[in-house]
């Protein structure tokens, strides 16, 4: 039994003038303790919504379907009430841009102690001590606990947010673009820290990002999302060297190569609208290798290698035959 398994997750948002936006369309993946999974895609592809849905952090105009199995138990069964007890204690999150993720009028220490006391992990002086230790663990002096968030630099704030996320010793850590808006040196430090923490604490990590080098550095496996669905998923090496979905291939090609050996290729066109049902493959209008079945029939995820799946007609027998 895996630690966290997501099965056929759907999320819809009510639109102000009627209708629904189908933001997440049947996403599934799993992680085990100590594993690091990347969730990659352009902005708007649904990756943030997906991980928010894992913790039930959706707004009132959202509808969710599917299962989120934590140690076999479906925490999303009824909604807010079944998922709330697991928040922070089992699944914790680090948000994008800790600028605002920390309450500006309360000390960092208070904010780390808060979930500890809520979930009965520790109280009072013991909790405060643990908070200081957590801060030390992420590279902030313990005295920082009595400081306010605005007194820290961006990188330190993100580390404080990380310490806060680990306060209740969760089994799964969700990180939403944790290093965007930080400068490169700080980025590298935070990413190293994530890897170290995941290894030492046997923490499962799901890292959401649009930045491929980040995924390459941190994760062993990744899932590429497009238009609310998973286009391809597998070991990061396989995705890089043997992509089985044109979008994955183009994504990697679109990343500027530090050595300047490859031309930067940008993907023309825009992602499809999600407020209407999509016919055929959602990537087809921008795909450079689309053929007959693509505009007509939606490709399903199928195995294309060891622990490697992709949703593309090019992987079918017909394609081999035709190609």
């Amino acid at each position, binding site marked *: 039994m895996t630690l966290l398994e997501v099965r056929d997750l759907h999320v819809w948002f009510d639109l102000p003038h009627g209708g629904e936006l189908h933001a997440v369309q049947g996403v599934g993946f799993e992680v085990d303790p100590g594993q690091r999974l990347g969730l990659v895609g352009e902005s708007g592809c649904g990756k943030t919504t997906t991980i928010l849905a894992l913790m039930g952090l959706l707004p009132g105009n959202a509808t969710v379907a599917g299962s989120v199995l934590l140690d076999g138990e479906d925490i999303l069964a009824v909604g807010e009430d079944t998922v709330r007890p697991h928040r922070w*204690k089992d699944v914790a999150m680090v948000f994008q841009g800790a*600028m605002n993720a920390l309450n500006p009028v309360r000390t960092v220490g208070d904010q780390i102690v808060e979930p500890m006391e809520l979930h009965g992990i520790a109280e009072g002086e013991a909790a405060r001590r643990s908070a200081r230790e957590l801060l030390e663990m992420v590279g902030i002096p313990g005295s920082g606990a009595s400081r306010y968030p605005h007194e820290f630099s961006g990188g330190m704030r993100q580390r404080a947010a990380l310490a806060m996320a680990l306060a209740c010793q969760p089994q799964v850590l969700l990180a939403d673009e944790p290093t965007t808006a930080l400068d490169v040196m700080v980025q590298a430090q935070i990413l190293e820290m994530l890897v170290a923490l995941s290894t030492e604490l046997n923490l499962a990590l799901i890292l959401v990002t649009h930045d491929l080098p980040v995924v390459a550095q941190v994760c062993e496996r990744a899932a590429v999302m497009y238009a609310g669905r998973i286009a391809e998923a597998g070991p990061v090496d396989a995705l890089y060297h043997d992509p089985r979905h044109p979008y994955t291939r183009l994504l990697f090609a679109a990343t500027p190569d530090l050595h300047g050996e490859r031309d930067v290729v940008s993907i023309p066109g825009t992602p499809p609208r999600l407020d209407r049902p999509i016919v055929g493959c959602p990537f087809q209008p921008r795909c450079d290798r689309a053929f007959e079945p693509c505009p007509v029939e939606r490709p399903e995820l199928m195995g294309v290698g060891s622990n490697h799946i992709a949703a593309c007609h090019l992987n079918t027998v017909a394609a081999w035959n035709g190609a």
Partner: protein
Amino acid sequence: MRGIDYVLKRTGFALITVFVAITLNFVLFRALPGDAITNLSRVPHATPQLKRAIAKEFGLDKSKWQQYVIYLEQLAKGNMGISYEDQQPVVSKLKEKLANTIPMVALGTVIAILLGVVTGVISAWRRGTYLDNLSTMTAMAFYSFPTQWLALMLIILLAGFFPVSGRTDVFLLNPSAWQHFKDVMIHMTLPALTVALTLYGEYTLIVRSAMLETLGEDYVLTARAKGLKPWTVVRRHAFRNAMLPTVTLMAISLGYIVAGQILIETVFGWPGIGRAVFLAVSERDFPMLQGAFLVLTLVVVFFNLAADLLYFRLDPRITT
């Protein structure tokens, strides 16, 4: 204490503003054309002796500069002159009037704040629903009605239950302290209620706006992610933060409220400082008018300073 230099700086500014206010007060009443004080022919009770006494006291025979200096000297001694109406010292009359206004305004304001905060929070919580729209519309409506009209409406509706004029019952002879207190309180009801109704609309809208702002902040999502119950998140994170700008706006508005009670005091015949200003105008009682105006300006400056310092104290992000 954090930022004592900030406190000193702001207090310094306030004092400068006070000084400027005093000077402008002088200019307004003495130096402008249509000079009220010197144009004593407009003063109804002006006997020749009174005119001479006034001329002597205000030094009206001297130059404007000298008058200004005399004015400052007198103020420093706490002397704002003698009221034309009853020859009482302006300062003691003003003290009495201010003491009448403040409890009434305070009561009304407290009610308005409570009402405004409750409706504002509920509106923000249930944003977009029928309840929210209704509450916002009502707040705007009360905000739009003319104050004196609201006062009159209350009279029309509640005249049978509450006294509609004055601060005390003139027929109540030799009341005990308790009886006097009850008497004043019951007379205060309608005016305070009017204050509350005029004010609460503004507060509802401020609170609602501030709450909506904080409810969209990331730290609220973080708090929710920690597993806190929704109401705890609201109370401990959203509300606390929303109150920062709200409290300061409220503090600032208090200054103007004390000044603006002229309408309510006129309708209800409440002997407060607002009404004193109005009576002074009709009686051409210029020392009284000048004194009252200065006091009201000082009240505004005071509350602005208080709001400033309060915000500084509450928000750790503000350094100098």
